[in-house]
């Protein structure tokens, strides 16, 4: 048995490996794209209102900016307080086709020293954290940004 893999938020991403994608919605009337997904009405004040259709977002984008978390964030971020804090990067990525910027954690092992504004990154499946024991616990899945030059 292993922990049950559960997305940290339902409906924001799907797929495995190369097919992993962030999921947004697009307005059929004005072409605005929403992430996180918008499922009620289009938020463009000049839009007559179209259907909001689920769309996978571009897999690759360029770094708009980046930083890291040198201190343990407070709850509801889940982290094991028994373990020493391991900083992770946070990367804001500009998606050209959707013309929006999406923030995400960088893949484990990548530090701010490895990043540069304008660098190409791709979205990959990631593990946010684990709850409970090996047999009945939950592994919370998420998305990570990984520089396209990095294969690890």
């Amino acid at each position: 048995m292993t922990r049950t893999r559960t997305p940290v938020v339902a409906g924001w991403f799907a797929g495995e490996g190369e097919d992993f994608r962030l999921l947004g919605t697009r307005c059929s009337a004005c072409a605005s794209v929403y992430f996180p997904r918008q499922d009620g009405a289009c938020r463009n004040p000049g839009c007559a209102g179209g259907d909001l259709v689920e769309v996978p977002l571009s897999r690759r984008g360029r770094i708009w900016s980046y930083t890291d978390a040198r201190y343990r964030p407070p709850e509801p971020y889940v982290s094991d307080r028994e373990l020493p804090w391991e900083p992770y990067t946070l990367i804001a990525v500009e998606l050209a086709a959707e013309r929006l910027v999406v923030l995400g954690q960088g893949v484990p092992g990548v530090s701010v020293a490895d990043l540069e504004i304008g660098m190409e990154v791709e979205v990959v499946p990631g593990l946010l954290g684990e709850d409970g024991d090996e047999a009945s616990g939950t592994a919370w899945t998420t998305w990570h940004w990984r520089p396209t030059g990095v294969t690890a």
Partner: protein
Amino acid sequence: MTGDVAVLGAGMHPWGKWGRSFVEYGTAAARAALADAGIGWRDVQSVVGADTVRGGYPGYVAGATFAKALGWQGARVTSVYAACASGAQAIATARAQILAGLADVVLVVGADAAPKGFFRPAGGDRPDDPDWLRFRVLGATNPTYFGLYARRRMAVHGDTLEDFAQVKVKNAACGALNPHARYRTAVSAEEVAASAVVADPLRLLDICATSDGGASLVLSSMEFARRHGATDPVRIRAVSTVTPTYPNTVLDLPDIATDSAAGVEPDGASFRSSIARAAYEEAGIGPEELSLAEVYDLSTALELQWYEDLGLCAEGAAAKLLREGATAPGGRIPVNVSGGLASFGEAVPAQAIAQVCELTWQLRGTAGARQVTGARVGITANQGLFGHGSSVVAVR
């Protein structure tokens, strides 16, 4: 001007971690503002409280909480919440009541007892709240966003860590002169550089702390001020509380993504610059007429951003303005002569009110050692989570 309201009184409780309730800070600030105005609490016809979100249930009904603590006397009451813009909305509400003729004299109060460490969202499992989501999904604290803006400025405009440090050096030197400030010691660039990195490239001394504090204003109609003998009071000429325009294309707290520009071409102005523009338009005053500005320096890098958004210099030229000394005391446009949040720390509902207290003292010429010579026009700038604008123009 018919749109003006008078600032009759301004008061604060000193900021710091005092371990008391927000009610104590707020009532102390209110009593100070009433004494400064020279009017009794019973003369106040309306109380507007800026809400705190922590500190439990009473925080959500701040107006009545302060009114009760001061002694029920039947005044009209309002409580407003707009995150860091709560104080500006409290001022806007008071001003609207005065201009509408609903009240001649209004007491505005904001106070908070902040928790230690990072701000965090309200408790419980709340996946419909963007503020909860950014912590749960990304562990993205407020300094995360400040770090993103700082790194972006370095890449796009060539700002350096030394520039950021110099903002702290400037503001700490000002705060050392302010008896209301929490931190009252000078800080060197070396000390900033030696402090721990919190969110690369920003260090502990680049980021403002959380604090307890309280601030209060007594606002009145110009007619009441005249009858009261205040012939030349500081006047509030504009209060900007605008929202962003779609699409908002700069990643902002607490959102995980920006709006998309795929459907509508952005108009080119950032949300922060639109806050200032609305204030200038309402006041009929431009940035070249300012004597001083109090801006929201949550981080050193963010203060530089405000220079550009307020039109104190061209886009990308903020570090140059700083290096020239233009924003230091004695410069062309001193910024955060109060010491700013760098010296006060954040007490969310109080800070936008505290900015106007500083403008009031500066425009009266009673700011003591930190007085800006001949100050006639001042602006505050601030921004509240979830898209709340906040800017006040005061004149004398």
